[in-house]
């Protein structure tokens, strides 16, 4: 061992011995009763099967009741925003998949929309339809994982197996279009990486034939199941006012009865031309959030069916013809000197975006996913920031809902909010 390493190790040990950690350090976070030992402090996580990743919750317990809940996140922090500043605009798309690994297409979409807004890049209609279709398939994919794990946490094992079986079909479709099951990186500025293959539409149609019946099965398993109702109704309640104050979005907000869906309110990618409804809850409890997501599955099916019908009627380019942003097809390289220059510039330097800043939001399966993109006129992002729903929900909604509830219900609350820790920590 080198001297430096020895110093570092012993220094670390000394600092551990010097650490006189007491509960006094927590006095601003927990109630005064914890300082006198009246209530108990308990760590839930970072390794806990119900936290869907590496989330640590510091719980203050009075018997079985949760007095306060302090989330501790950052175990999955990988510095994605910092790393993106060191890559060109197009290379950085790869990083976005890794944030919310259940919603890779959505992450690609919000970042591409930000680039397109900043550079005023046009997106052909065919690409828009495929984007909507895949974004909704991603929503189904994400909701299926949510449904499976949420039920597994609450003790319903069989739903998990069914949900994973159907999710596999969605992942097969992703693999068909992008070559990757999860980290697809399929959306690019100005359109798509490549056109969808011929077998894509039959595969989606096949899935759409099977899937609605499967959703009926999930409904039959859960919606009127007395055990499920006993376990979920009336717990983790959040009022609409609190939900807005604490930054809740998506199904967590709609479960409280607030009609807010960015696809309807501030449409992007032509969502205003699709027919679908926004399911709303009334009580804001775990069961209502569950119902909202179950109904969203059916709305996604509706959107996909419309998108498939449109896609069949819409031939045309899958990516913008603006050669400053999209590379020319291989066949042009042998004929046109200009195409060779564009190809060379795009694959060495990348494109540049004008100086400025934009903020773009989409409705991800978990809520409002926003991207702040600032460019200084160069070929790399000056600053990228993602407003991720999981971060806001973990830090705000879960402590708020868990407060004054029971410890056993906390597992249901975490599941109902549907957090992904990769999305939270970035």
């Amino acid at each position: 061992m080198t001297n430096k390493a020895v110093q570092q190790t012993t220094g670390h040990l000394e600092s551990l011995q010097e650490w006189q950690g007491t509960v006094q350090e927590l006095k601003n976070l927990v109630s005064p009763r914890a300082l006198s030992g009246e209530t108990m402090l308990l760590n839930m996580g970072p390794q806990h099967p119900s936290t869907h990743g590496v989330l640590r919750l510091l719980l203050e317990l009075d018997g079985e009741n949760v007095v306060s809940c302090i989330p501790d996140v950052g175990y999955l922090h990988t510095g994605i925003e910092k790393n993106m500043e060191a890559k060109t605009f197009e290379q950085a798309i790869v990083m976005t998949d890794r944030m919310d690994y259940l919603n890779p297409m959505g992450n690609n979409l919000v970042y591409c929309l930000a680039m397109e807004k900043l550079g005023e890049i046009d997106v052909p209609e065919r690409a828009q339809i495929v984007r909507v279709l895949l974004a909704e398939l991603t929503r189904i994919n994400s909701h299926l994982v949510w449904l499976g794990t949420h039920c597994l946490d609450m003790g319903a094992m069989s739903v998990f197996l069914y949900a994973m079986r159907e999710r596999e079909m969605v992942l097969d479709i992703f693999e068909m279009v992008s070559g990757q099951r999860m980290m697809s990186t399929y959306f690019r500025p100005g359109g798509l990486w490549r056109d969808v293959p011929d077998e894509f539409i039959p595969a989606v149609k096949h899935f759409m034939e099977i899937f609605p019946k499967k959703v009926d099965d999930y409904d039959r398993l859960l919606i009127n199941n007395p055990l499920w109702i006993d376990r979920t109704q009336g717990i983790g309640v959040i009022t609409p006012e609190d939900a807005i104050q604490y930054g809740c979005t998506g199904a967590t907000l709609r479960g409280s009865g607030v009609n807010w869906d960015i696809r309807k309110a501030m449409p992007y990618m032509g969502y205003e031309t699709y027919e679908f409804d926004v399911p709303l809850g009334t009580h804001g409890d775990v069961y209502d959030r569950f119902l909202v997501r179950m109904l969203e599955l059916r709305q996604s099916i509706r959107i996909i069916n419309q998108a498939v019908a449109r896609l069949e009627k819409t031939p045309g380019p899958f990516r913008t013809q603006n050669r400053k942003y999209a590379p020319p097809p291989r066949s042009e390289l042998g004929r046109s000197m200009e195409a060779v220059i564009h190809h060379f510039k795009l694959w060495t330097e990348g494109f540049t975006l004008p100086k400025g800043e934009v903020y773009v939001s989409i409705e991800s399966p978990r809520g409002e996913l926003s991207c702040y993109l600032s460019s200084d006129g160069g070929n790399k992002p000056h600053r990228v920031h993602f407003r991720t729903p999981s971060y806001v929900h973990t830090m705000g909604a879960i402590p708020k809902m868990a407060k004054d509830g029971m410890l056993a219900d906390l597992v249901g609350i975490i599941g109902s909010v549907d957090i992904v820790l990769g999305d939270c920590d970035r």
Partner: protein
Amino acid sequence: MQQPLDPVELAKLTLKDAVLDVIEFRGETTIVVKPETIVDVMRFFRDTEGLEYIFLSDITAVDYFPQEPRFALNYHLLSMLYLRRLRVKVYLHSDDPRIESVTSVFASADWEEREAYDMMGIHFENHPSLRRVLMPEDWEGHPQRKDYPLGYEQVQFSFNFDDIERLKPYAKE
């Protein structure tokens, strides 16, 4: 329902000197305000009828190193009633990046400000508990700053194999 009002005109009329600049870019409105007025400005945009930006989406800290003022904070507000967004921006100097916390106006500012503190080292006064959130408690430096190195592992080739091997943190001897 009250008719929507123009946030820029109303802000100039009511907040007067606090508004430093207004930027329109790609259909987005940015209002640059004085840092010391931020809490009043937030309360104004939240409570004024016809604006009602009741939802704080995000606080983004940006580092414009080596320019001065170096830091900027972008408060992204959303009006769910009038379906529009607004960016309120403040610039902070690098010698003492310090600003009043807006947690008294928006509860959701709490963790966004903690992230800005963690990543950029901007201090928020009267924040209920300004701790690091994503990085470990004992971390030194603020990783999102432009003068913070990205860090990487040097690629090991045959010509520099031994040099790099020596630096690797193996247990030796």
